[in-house]
C-alpha cells in the first residue's frame, strides 16, 4: 500500500488532537447547537415514515448484496458508462486517482477547475495534487469555499465550516474573496450573496468540473448527486468536461434501489423530507465530455474483513456525527481524517490499515447511538471493538488482545450484545465507579486517560425503544 495521499485519512493521534479541542468552549457551543438542531429535525422527519425500519433494513441489505458481488456490479456499471460514451478510469489508491484526474484536467489545457463537494475527492487529496500541478481548484459548496479560503480543514461531513462563526467568515471573505465589497456585513444572507456573485462568474467561465457521486446505478449507468445549494447542478451542467470521482462502494445494483436510498439519505442527513436538488445523469449530456474515476484506496482491503466491511455501506449522511457525544465535544478536526465522527473512527483506520491509524478506534464511548441512527444500520460499536482488537494484536500483550477479542465476540452479534448489556455484566466489568468507566489499561488508556467513558446505561437504548 502506498502512503501518498494518506494525510487526508490519518493525522495526529486522536487523544492529542482532542485535548486541544476540548479546551475550546466556543467550538463546543457551536457544535452542540448545530448537532442538536439537526438531530431534532432528523427525528421529526424520520418519525413521519411508518416504514422507516423496513427502509433501513432494505438499505442495509441492498448495500450488503452489492458488496457481496461488487466486481459484477462494477463491470456492469462500467459497460453502461462506456456504451453511453463516458470514459472510465480505475485507481488503486488515492495517489493514482489524483494523478488521473490531474492529468485529465491538464489535457484540456485548463488551469482552473470548479468542484462539487465530494468526500472521495477530499480523501484522495485532490486539491493538493491540483496545487502541485499548477491548477487552481475552486470549491463551490459554500462551506467548502469558506474552508478553502481559510486554508482550513472541514470539520463535518455535511456542514464542513460548522466551526466558523459569521464574523470570522465575513473577515475571511473580505480578506480572501476577489471582488468582495469592503463593507460586507456578517449577515448570512449577505455572505451567501457575496459567494453567489463570486461563484456565478466561475460557473459560467471555467470549463472543467469535478464531482463525486452519492450513488452509482449498476444496471443503468446513472450517477446521482444530492445537494442543497444548486452549486452541484451548476458544475454538472455548465462546464464542457465533467470528471466524477466515485468510490467503488457507491454502487447500487438497480435503478429501483434508489426508492430506498432517496428516502433514507435526506431524512438522515439534513432532516428534510427531501434535499433541494438531486441530479441524475446517464452518460454525457448536452454536449459534455464525461469521465468517471473508480477509486479503491483501501476499500478492497476493507471488503476483505468480514466484520469491518459493513462500514462500506455508509451513505455519508452524517447522522452518526450529529448523535455522537464524543464528536459533539471534540469536533471533526480531532479525528485527523476526512471522515470524522463515528464513521470516521471505523472507516479511516480500515482504509489506511490500523497500523497507520491506531487511536481512532478508541475515539468512542461505545454508547451505541451511532448505530441506532444509522440509516443503513452499520453496527459501528462492534466494528470499533473489532478494530481495537486488531490494533492490540498488532502490538500489545496477548491478554489484552484476548480481552478485545472477547469483547468483539460479545458485540459481533446483536442478540448476544443485548443479552450481555441487559445482564449488566459488561457494564459492571467496565464501570468501576458509579457511572463512569475509569482508567483502562493501555492502549485503552489513550482514551480513558483524558476522558471518562460513560458506563453503559442500565436500560439500553434498544430496550427502551422496544418497550415504547
Amino acid at each position, binding site marked *: 500500500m502506498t502512503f501518498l495521499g494518506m494525510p487526508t485519512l490519518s493525522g495526529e493521534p486522536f487523544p492529542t488532537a482532542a485535548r486541544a479541542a476540548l479546551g475550546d468552549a466556543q467550538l463546543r457551543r457551536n457544535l452542540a447547537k448545530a448537532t442538536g438542531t439537526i438531530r431534532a429535525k432528523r427525528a421529526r422527519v424520520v418519525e413521519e415514515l411508518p416504514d422507516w*425500519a423496513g427502509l433501513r433494513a432494505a438499505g442495509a441489505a441492498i448495500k450488503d448484496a452489492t458488496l457481496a458481488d461488487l466486481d459484477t456490479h462494477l463491470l456492469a456499471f462500467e459497460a453502461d458508462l462506456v456504451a453511453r460514451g463516458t470514459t472510465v478510469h480505475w485507481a488503486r489508491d488515492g495517489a493514482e486517482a489524483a494523478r488521473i484526474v490531474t492529468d485529465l484536467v491538464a489535457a484540456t489545457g485548463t488551469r482552473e477547475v470548479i468542484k462539487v463537494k465530494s468526500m472521495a475527492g477530499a480523501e484522495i487529496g485532490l486539491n493538493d495534487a491540483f496545487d502541485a500541478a499548477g491548477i487552481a481548484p475552486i470549491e463551490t459548496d459554500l462551506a467548502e469555499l469558506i474552508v478553502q479560503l481559510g486554508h482550513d480543514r472541514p470539520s463535518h461531513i455535511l456542514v464542513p465550516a460548522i466551526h466558523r462563526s459569521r464574523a470570522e467568515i465575513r473577515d475571511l471573505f473580505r480578506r480572501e474573496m476577489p471582488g468582495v465589497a469592503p463593507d460586507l456585513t456578517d449577515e448570512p444572507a449577505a455572505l451567501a450573496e457575496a459567494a453567489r456573485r463570486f461563484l456565478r462568474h466561475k460557473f459560467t467561465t471555467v470549463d472543467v468540473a469535478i464531482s463525486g457521486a452519492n450513488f452509482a446505478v449498476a444496471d443503468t449507468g446513472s450517477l446521482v448527486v444530492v445537494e442543497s445549494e444548486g452549486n452541484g447542478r451548476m458544475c454538472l451542467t455548465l462546464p464542457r468536461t465533467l470528471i466524477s470521482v466515485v468510490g467503488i462502494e457507491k454502487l447500487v445494483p438497480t435503478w429501483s434501489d434508489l426508492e430506498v436510498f432517496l428516502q433514507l439519505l435526506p431524512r438522515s442527513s439534513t432532516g428534510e423530507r427531501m434535499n433541494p436538488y438531486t441530479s441524475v445523469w446517464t452518460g454525457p449530456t448536452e454536449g459534455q465530455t464525461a469521465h468517471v474515476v473508480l477509486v479503491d484506496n483501501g476499500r478492497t482491503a476493507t471488503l476483505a474483513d468480514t466484520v469491518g466491511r459493513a462500514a462500506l455501506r455508509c451513505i455519508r449522511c452524517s447522522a452518526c456525527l450529529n448523535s455522537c457525544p464524543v464528536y459533539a465535544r471534540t469536533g471533526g478536526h480531532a479525528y485527523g481524517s476526512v471522515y470524522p465522527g463515528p464513521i470516521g473512527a471505523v472507516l479511516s483506520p480500515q482504509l489506511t490499515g490500523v497500523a497507520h491509524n491506531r487511536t481512532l478506534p478508541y475515539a468512542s464511548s461505545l454508547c451505541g447511538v451511532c448505530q441506532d441512527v444509522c440509516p443503513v444500520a452499520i453496527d459501528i460499536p462492534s466494528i470499533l471493538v473489532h478494530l481495537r482488537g486488531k490494533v492490540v494484536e498488532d502490538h500489545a500483550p496477548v491478554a489484552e488482545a484476548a480481552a478485545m477479542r472477547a469483547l468483539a465476540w460479545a458485540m459481533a452479534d446483536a442478540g448476544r450484545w443485548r443479552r450481555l448489556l441487559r445482564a449488566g455484566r459488561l457494564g459492571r466489568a467496565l464501570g468501576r465507579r458509579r457511572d463512569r468507566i475509569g482508567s483502562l489499561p493501555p492502549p485503552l488508556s489513550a482514551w480513558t486517560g483524558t476522558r471518562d467513558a460513560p458506563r453503559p446505561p442500565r436500560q439500553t437504548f434498544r430496550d427502551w425503544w422496544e418497550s415504547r
Partner: protein
Amino acid sequence: MNARDEILRRIAAALGDRRPTPPVPRAYRRATGEPGDVDLFADRVRDYGARVRVVSADAIAAAVATALHDRNARDVVAAPGIPAGWAPTADRSTVDTQRLGAVDGVITACRVAIAATGTIVLDHDAPDQGVRALTLLPDYHLVVVRRDRIVADVPDAVAALAGVRTQTWISGPSATSDIELERVEGVHGPRTLEVIVAR
C-alpha cells in the same frame, strides 16, 4: 497488472468463496400506482418556502399570467414544449447562458411530482421541461404541475422515472445552512420557486 485488473483481483480475493446473500427484505411501502394527493403535495411544497397556487385545469393560462404579473416578470423564457397559450409572450428559443442569467424567469412543466415530499422532477429530454441550463440560471422558476403527474411517494416516482436519462429533482428553492445553520435561500440556482398545481 493494470489498475482495473488489480482492483478486480483484490475484490475476488476479498470475497473468497461467495455465499449467496439473503434476498433484500422489501418491507416498506413500494410503488402503488395510486394517484398522489393534490393538497398534500401543495402543502409539502409550501413547507419549503415556495409559492403555490392551486387552480382548475382550464385556468392554467390565467394563473401563469397572474403569477408573472405579480412577480413583475416581463422577460420570460419558456421551455420549447410549453403550450403557446400558457405564456404567449415568452421566448421559446434561447439557451444562451449569458441571456438566461439575465432573464426575469423561466416556465416549465414537470415529469413527476411527489406528494409526500413536495418534490418536482424534471426530465431534461422532454420538450416542456428543457435542458438543464434553462431552469438553472434564471432567478425565478415557475413550474406547472398537472394532476396526472402527481404520484404518492418516492417509490412511485422512481418507478415512473426508469429510463429517464437526465433528471433534476427539485424540493423547494436553493438553500444553504452553512453559516451558523441559519437558512438562506438561493445561493445558486433560482431563489424563487413558484408552483401552479392544476387539479
